């Protein structure tokens, strides 16, 4: 997976640009500099006049002014001869965190205290008590970069601490979710697995787990095969049934006495033939029946009632099957076993068995389940409504306006709660009595590239969600609270991918240290309580938040959102020579919004909304948004070729300060400067507007906030302009730095890092090109996903770009990305890594030296220099407190063995248990959930000689771990 740099210095996505040393007349660095920057440095020391002869001179010694004011003499010799410092720190990539919950039923542990969720690359165990992550068990799902994915996961029936996980390529894991063991050694079936279910069956005296696997391969038709553990190691099982068509769902019930599989609009019921008691033959024989369903089956559930025979054995009394259709109907086949004639092996006439039909859903029923008592059906789908059907009367109750489409519903074994998996990467547990959520687990809700299409796509519809990621994920880190990450998300995956561009009207605040979604803010128009499709069945397009930036102090947040009507709505407006695209552009709504962020980051309040921040005769796209690192100031660049800076001021009405409810003075944001950029090529904006090639631009503040670097222009003609932020005057213009569209520009020290089809590092002070690479993949979607991030602390920058791949024209599943980390003074990348998923965002970690990467599998990676690791969550088990909750006195209760608890943690828990003895009530509470950074805060405050007295430290640590005193 890891990649390397070849002899030419090329990597998978970047090609080193070759230039001879001292190549001053190179076409690439030909520039037309009229005047040089007179001031750039932090401390305002004017550069000595270096335009003596009008052309930049190369000097052997250049004074480099660091941001901290240190003056050092750097040898900035000719380009190719940069001295590479060998002693650079090593960069390390962390393990991925997070991921996307798969469309697989969540699993309750036997005592309902834990919930096991299947993610795309891992299994994760959460407590239902307080929604905390106990253990993350990574699964090596992707073997060779091709589309391997988990199809099924189910708890073992005989040992409740084991989970069976089936992958589509035939690997089956048996994982102990209390320890994480078993992830390394899968069983191999060597067939494509379509679906899988687990039942316990009696083999004579022993009861074994039997895997019922719906499998297929290129040459053979689909079959249901039963495997026990021995069979799995051999790779051969017992064939139960062979299908002519390709089924998609398999469920079984009552210790395997009933097996139901659906394929298209047929479902197959298999009833276990009676065996003579005591015969320990492992032979399983089923009698299969095929029954037609009026719709394509999208979901399936079985309910069985058993009766005890006189001999003490159990046999089936009644089998009820419910099938959710792809067109919204729910079909209930009650007591189906009785209606099947034992003689008529094979197809049963469809007319003989008529289902009851329940129809409310507009689209596919993603999940339908029986309630524990069998009186209700619970179903959910695209409508974001949980529907509760009374089976006998067809009366419906709703739990409406959930935050995403419902993917899975699970009724707990005791029937007291429902686990609902929504497609915004969250799972909640709802109590059945009050319909109140008791547990909420929310992951990163960014877009992912899914493994298989949604169930709604089983039927041809008016629209189809796109399955590509066309834009990078927009993120921002709260500087006041670096563990808070703000991501622009939509109302779930499907709603986001609805029409055309992504609809991301919301911002999720995600805490990377506790690794869960803290809250969601609405940043643009969204109507979660209204129907999410139009009367014609098309999705409702919501605005896209395209830019997000925090002010340096973290008190203000600026956002840009964009909306344009869908193409179908605008056909009537097309007149004359206008194209549909122009008509839509005329009706775009682009807002620049300024938000005040509360101190803890949990609340944001809209302060100012700017409607036409950039406009000509229509609204123009805001191409870039940058925030001044030193003060509360933002700058925007628009397609109209204007840079505007925005500052806040106290709101006044007739000279009287406007105060809020608590008497605090209110602020408003206004445009403080407007700088028109020199536009290359055609100057007049009003003439030939339609033929104008699309322009691109980006801007960045210098590290000290004294200069804005703005890049703007038509493809390959973009120029970089240095604007003095004091006066708004243009101090310098740099030409010919870009090839193709401008992607990004960043400033680091005296260097500018520019990303277009080239990656260029240019020293502004010494006026020379340090080094440059060119992207190998230059297709439009690939260029849009090339990203650049700069970390001031480690003086380094990271570039992420998709790896070229001929098969993929769009950024779909299977696209790989490469991440390169450069130090500013070194043209050799310090880290090159290929990610098997597309990188959707890369941004610098605040107050540490590294970077954080988000990929298209909703995983978070941290890249850090040396041993330093950002404060990211580790599961409770790694912290050694996982079983602190496990204080049930029952001897049979599971013990979560600790993977890596060290001695001190053990002692700590001993102490906890002592406390338990005394208190003995309220034992469900986690005694101590201590994030590691809290301890770090205590112990790493000062060097050892300057530490506070040991007594103070003791009390601080004790304060962290000790339970709150019980009020009597």
């Amino acid at each position, binding site marked *: 997976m890891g990649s390397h740099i070849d002899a030419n210095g090329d990597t998978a996505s970047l090609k080193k640009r070759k230039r001879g040393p001292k190549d001053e007349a190179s076409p690439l660095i030909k520039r037309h500099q009229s005047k040089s920057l007179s001031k750039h440095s932090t401390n305002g020391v004017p550069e000595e006049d270096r335009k003596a002869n009008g052309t930049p001179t190369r000097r052997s010694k250049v004074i480099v002014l660091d941001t901290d004011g240190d003056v050092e003499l750097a040898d900035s010799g000719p380009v190719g001869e940069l001295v590479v410092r060998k002693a650079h720190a090593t960069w390390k990539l962390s393990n991925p965190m997070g991921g996307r919950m798969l469309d697989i039923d969540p699993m309750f542990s036997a005592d309902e205290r834990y919930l096991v969720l299947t993610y795309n690359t891992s299994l994760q165990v959460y407590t239902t008590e307080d929604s905390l992550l106990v253990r993350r068990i990574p699964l090596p799902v992707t073997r060779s970069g091709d589309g391997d994915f988990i199809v099924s996961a189910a708890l073992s029936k005989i040992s409740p601490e084991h989970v069976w996980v089936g992958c589509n390529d035939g690997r089956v894991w048996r994982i102990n979710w209390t320890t994480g063991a078993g992830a390394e050694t899968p069983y191999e079936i060597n067939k494509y697995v379509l679906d899988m279910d687990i039942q316990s069956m009696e083999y004579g005296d022993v009861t074994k787990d039997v895997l019922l696997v719906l499998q297929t391969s290129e040459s053979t038709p689909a079959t249901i095969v039963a495997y026990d553990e021995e069979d799995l190691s051999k790779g051969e099982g017992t064939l139960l049934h062979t299908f002519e068509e390709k089924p998609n769902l398999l469920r079984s019930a009552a210790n395997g006495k009933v097996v139901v599989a659906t394929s298209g609009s047929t479902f197959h019921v298999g009833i276990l033939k009676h065996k003579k008691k005591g015969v320990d033959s492992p032979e399983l024989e089923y009698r299969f029946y095929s029954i037609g369903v009026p719709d394509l089956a999208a979901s399936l559930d079985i309910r069985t009632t058993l009766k005890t025979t006189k001999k003490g054995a159990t046999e089936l009394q009644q089998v009820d099957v419910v099938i959710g259709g792809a067109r919204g109907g729910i079909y209930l086949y009650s007591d189906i076993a009785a209606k099947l004639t034992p003689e008529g092996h094979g197809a049963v006439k469809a007319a003989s068995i008529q289902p009851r039909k329940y129809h409310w859903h507009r689209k596919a029923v993603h999940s339908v389940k029986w309630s524990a008592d069998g009186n209700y059906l619970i179903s959910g789908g695209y409508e974001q409504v949980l529907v509760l059907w009374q089976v006998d009367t067809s009366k419906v109750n709703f*739990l409406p*306006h959930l*935050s995403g489409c419902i993917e899975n519903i699970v009724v707990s074994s005791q029937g007291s709660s429902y686990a609902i998996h929504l497609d915004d990467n969250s799972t909640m547990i709802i109590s059945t009595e009050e319909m109140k959520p008791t547990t909420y687990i929310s992951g990163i809700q960014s877009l992912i590239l899914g493994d298989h299409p949604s169930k709604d796509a089983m039927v041809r519809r008016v629209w189809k969600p796109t399955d590509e990621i066309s834009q990078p994920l927009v993120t921002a880190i709260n500087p006041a609270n670096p563990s808070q990450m703000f991501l622009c998300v939509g109302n779930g995956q499907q709603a986001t991918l609805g029409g055309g561009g992504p609809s991301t009207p919301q911002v999720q605040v995600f805490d990377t240290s506790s690794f869960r979604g803290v809250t969601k803010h609405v940043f643009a*128009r969204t109507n979660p309580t209204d129907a999410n499709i139009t009367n014609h069945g098309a999705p409702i397009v919501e605005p896209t938040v395209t830019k997000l930036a925090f002010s340096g102090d973290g008190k203000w947040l600026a956002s840009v959102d964009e909306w344009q009507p869908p193409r179908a709505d605008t056909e*009537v407006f097309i007149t004359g020579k206008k194209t549909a695209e122009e008509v839509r552009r005329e009706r775009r709504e682009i807002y620049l919004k300024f938000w005040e962020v509360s101190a803890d980051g949990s609340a944001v309040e809209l302060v100012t909304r700017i409607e036409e921040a950039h406009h000509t005769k229509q609204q123009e796209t805001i191409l870039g948004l940058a925030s001044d690192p030193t003060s509360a100031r933002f700058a925007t660049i628009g397609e109209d070729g204007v840079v505007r800076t925005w500052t806040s001021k106290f709101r006044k009405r007739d*000279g009287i300060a406007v105060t809020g409810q608590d008497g605090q003075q209110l602020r408003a944001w206004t445009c403080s400067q407007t700088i028109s950029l020199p536009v290359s090529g055609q100057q007049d904006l009003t003439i030939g507007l339609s033929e104008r090639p699309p322009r691109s631009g980006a801007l960045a503040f210098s590290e000290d906030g004294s200069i804005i670097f703005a890049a703007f222009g038509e493809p390959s003609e973009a120029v970089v302009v240095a604007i003095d932020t004091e006066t708004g005057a243009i101090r310098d213009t740099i030409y010919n730095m870009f090839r193709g569209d401008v992607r990004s520009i960043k400033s680091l020290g005296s260097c500018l890092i520019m990303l277009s089809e080239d990656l260029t590092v240019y020293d502004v002070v010494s006026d020379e090109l340090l080094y440059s690479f060119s992207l190998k993949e230059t297709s439009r979607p690939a260029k849009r996903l090339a990203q650049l991030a700069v970390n001031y602390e480690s003086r380094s920058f990271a570039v992420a770009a998709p790896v070229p791949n001929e098969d993929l024209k769009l950024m779909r599943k299977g696209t790989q990305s490469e991440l390169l980390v450069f130090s500013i003074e070194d043209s050799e990348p310090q880290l090159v890594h290929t990610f098997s998923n597309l990188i959707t965002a890369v941004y610098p970690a605040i107050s540490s030296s590294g970077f954080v990467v988000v990929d298209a599998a909703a995983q978070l990676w941290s890249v850090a220099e040396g041993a330093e690791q950002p404060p990211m969550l580790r599961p409770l088990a790694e912290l050694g407190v996982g079983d602190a909750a496990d204080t049930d006195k029952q001897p049979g209760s599971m013990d979560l063995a600790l993977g890596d608890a060290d001695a001190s943690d053990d002692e700590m828990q001993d102490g906890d248990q002592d406390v338990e003895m005394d208190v003995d009530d309220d034992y469900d509470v986690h005694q101590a959930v201590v994030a590691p950074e809290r301890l770090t805060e205590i112990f790493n405050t000062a060097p050892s000689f300057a530490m506070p007295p040991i007594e103070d430290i003791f009390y601080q640590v004790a304060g962290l771990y000790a339970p709150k005193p019980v009020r009597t």
Partner: protein
Amino acid sequence: MAAQVLPLPQLKLPMGPSPVTPEQRYWKSFRSQKSHTSTAAWPISHISFPATAGATSSSSLVAAAKVNDLFAVTSGPRVDIFSIRKRELLKTIGRFDSEAHSGEIRADGRVLVAGEDSGKMQVFDVGGGTRAVILKTWHIHKQPVWATKWSPTELTTLMSASDDKTVRLWDLPSNNPSLTFTGHSDYVRSGAFMPGGNSNILVTGSYDETVRVWDARASSSSVLTFKHADPIEDVLPLPSGTTILAASGSAISVLDLVAAKPLRLITNHQKTVTTLSLASNGRRVISGSLDGHVKVFETSGWNVVSSSKYPSPILSLSVIAAGATQEDRHLAVGMQSGVLSLRTRLSGAAANKARERAAEEAARDIGTEALERLDAQKAKRKRRELTSKAMDLLGESVDAAIPAGASRTPGARGSKRAVKLKPWQRDFREGRYASALDRVLDPSSNDFHSQTVLTLLVALRHRSALRDALKDRDEVTVLPILKWVRKHLPSTRFSSICIDVAFHLLDLYSEYVGGSTVLASQFRMLYGRVKLEVEKSQMAIMTGGMVESLMVGGAE
């Protein structure tokens, strides 16, 4: 969890050029005008009410009750004394030989001083009897006395300013002035004691275009002199004691005593500013001018926060404060025409009562049904009050008290109730877009407001439902939409959505124009409106081009 259903939020439009500010609303709330014309329409030259001061604690209870209830209005050879509470004329002092000036009631509300054109100064008893008793007469000034003021700290001290260019300080028992300040070279028409502790400092304004500050301890000459461009009509020291406002011509100058320099010149009036007054406990300054305008200024940046126009040149005004917190009660404006306009701001219980009375009157006008509904509402409110009172009496021992005669308990009021959607909002939510549009376009409904229509249309556009709402209409139902579009097309906020709606309407109904004369005429009128707008835009573009060429020429 499941989100609550909220009504469609009204569209927030960019702020227009002149939204009504809270300050304007406040000054508009001085309503219930009462006009009082002076005898023989003599111009109202002075309005004053006794400023409360801490030094008057010696007065009796009866007097204290009276303290805040009198204000004096000087017009011609009379001083009228009004009641603040009742806004009624209590008595008239007419014992002047010539025109009276500057009738001022002392802080304890017992005596009044006034000057007159003959140069006489008289002190009257305003207490008992309809006929005011003259307590004291001075005839030292040889020219008309224009300003007489009581000292805010000492009950027996007063000042006077006269056309004989002198300013005098008097002690009530003595017959001669205790001090005489000379230095002005023309008529002295205004004067005041400095507030705060330093009441031995006086400030006067004169027709010699100067404002002079005098110190009783250094009586030889003025301590400070501010020269202006025009005669000074009025001076007003601010409660801070360091700033003075002076009305000079059509400007008001802000003078700083500490720095001894003018801070600012306020030039909002068109004609001579005749009078200045404090308002809102000294946080606002109000000015009246011969141009008939009353302007309210805030005291930090001296911006106009509110303004109103009176029919006649204003000679005097005062914001009369009353009550324990000295809140603004009346805005009294005296005009050249002899009309005294009293506008009153009701607060607390009085405001409630007035509102109730207005509601009852309105209901009476509508009919008996409305009156009954109002009565039911009142009864309900009374019941609720009764219940809460009963609850208070019972303390916490019971959960609910059932009032006698109440048909049902008004319980569970505090619980969060779902916001009730209006009919059009419910129609919109449930996808009956055409019906929702009909409801907001119905002129008889309560929701008929252009901004509501705009909100709905924009929401329909966002939901891709604009065409659904417009299609399948007949001649009668399509007309309101066409009319609305025609009416609002010229407004910039509405034009974008109007254009979209018009496009849809043309697309949907153009084939029926031949069959319906009404539709045809409506479309023709729409065409006319569009043509007009196009002409306007062309004019604007031409103007823009001309200005641009001018600017290019200017730059060279």
